[in-house]
């Protein structure tokens, strides 16, 4: 029951999910390709004007992350449903919330890796300056992704075990992401524009608060959701 044991289980679940992902790669490649495609489509939709692209870049970037990342979450639980693995997983002793944390970490690594590829591509397509705002931008990406992945991991635990999971996950998840999306887009936009009004700090603080609120809520609600 001790904390080191639970930490061990968290690490084991994260290691297991990431090993399986690395083994197949097909899922990761498909998600990255889809993300690149969405970036392109936004480019077409927004027109070739460099100023317009730059102005809309923060929103397009985050929507790309949302639409492609959401595919990773259902997959994370489908692996468990494939051959009755979830039942075996729930039978291990200890706290079920360790499973949540392990999956959250694995999903976080997955989405951050997608972003690592998407971000330079977006910089090229939308004429963005990446190097100057980089430390702040990396922080915003990390915080925004933590909020996104926390809620995604939680809602996928429900949606993946329901008929019509493809529709239900975005329907449940996206309205919950409004605050995180809003703060992340505003902070990213401010940083990309050189932060003339010094407003990125406020949004980053807000993002941090949202992350904490949603993490605590999902962490404690997970036990009610995962049991059969």
């Amino acid at each position, binding site marked *: 029951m001790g904390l080191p044991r639970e930490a061990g289980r968290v690490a084991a679940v994260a290691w297991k999910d990431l090993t399986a992902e690395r083994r197949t790669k097909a899922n990761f490649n498909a998600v990255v390709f889809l993300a690149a495609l969405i970036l392109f489509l936004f480019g077409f939709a927004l027109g070739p004007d460099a100023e317009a692209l730059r102005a809309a870049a923060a929103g397009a970037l985050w929507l790309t992350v949302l639409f492609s990342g959401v595919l990773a979450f259902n997959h994370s639980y489908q692996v468990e449903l494939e051959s009755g693995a979830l039942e075996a997983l729930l039978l291990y002793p200890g706290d079920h919330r360790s499973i949540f944390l392990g999956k959250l970490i694995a999903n976080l690594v997955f989405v951050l890796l997608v972003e690592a590829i998407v971000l330079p591509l977006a910089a090229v397509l939308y004429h963005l300056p990446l190097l100057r705002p980089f430390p702040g931008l990396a922080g915003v990406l990390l915080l925004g992704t933590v909020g996104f992945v926390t809620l995604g991991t*939680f*809602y996928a635990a*429900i949606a993946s075990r*329901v*008929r*019509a999971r493809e529709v*239900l996950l975005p*329907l*449940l998840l*996206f*309205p*919950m992401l*409004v*605050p995180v999306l*809003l*703060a992340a887009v*505003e902070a990213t936009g401010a940083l990309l524009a050189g932060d003339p009004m010094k407003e990125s700090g*406020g949004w980053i603080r*807000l993002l941090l608060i*949202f992350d904490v*609120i*949603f993490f605590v*809520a*999902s962490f404690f*609600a997970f036990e*009610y*959701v995962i*049991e*059969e």
Partner: protein
Amino acid sequence: MPGSFVPAVVSRRRYQILGIIALAALVGAELLGLSASPPDRDMGHLQKIMYVHVPAAWSAFLAFFVVFIGSVLYLWKREERYDLLAAAAAEVALVLTALTLALGSIWGRPTWGVWWTWDPRLTTTAILLVMTVGYLALRSFVDEPDRRARWSAAVGILASLNVLVVYKSVQWWRTLHQVQSSPSTVDPAYALGLRLNALAFLLVLVYFILLRYRAARLERLVEAQAEARELAQGEELHV
């Protein structure tokens, strides 16, 4: 166990009385609001949409608060009636949020010149509508009652939390809307009408929730009787 919740369901007669009172209160309050208040300086008679729009919005959020309370009580006590209460309140919340948005648009178009504006209350109401749809969709996709109750309670609690967070964050994002309408900020000539309408909507809200709750309890009662019958039989009926 099946028998124990029959008395808890209020008798049909008392429902009908409450329904008649709620309807009468609504009609009375509307008539009073429409006739007793002078046309607004800027908006003219348009302003009177306030008598339905504002109470509808209040009741919608109140209904979702009942979803929150029902969800918390269910996870705490694990009694089915709290789950049914939350579900009944969500159905009413769906109707009221849709009404609020429609009325808001009708009001907004002549007043601000747009059907939609990204103001905190309007945006939060829209998000609330979507979350209520998600909540009810989830319920319809899960057949097993125990699982449905646990999952929707968790979703209901997170959604309630999100209502507050969305409201705060959109407020940060946009702060151009007029001050919230409440009896203390509107002209005294309109305050009475607003108060009475709020009361009437509250009665309608209680009536609707109780009605849906009663229907859900009766459904479960029939199901429980069928279950008990089936349990008593030796053979499988539904293989």
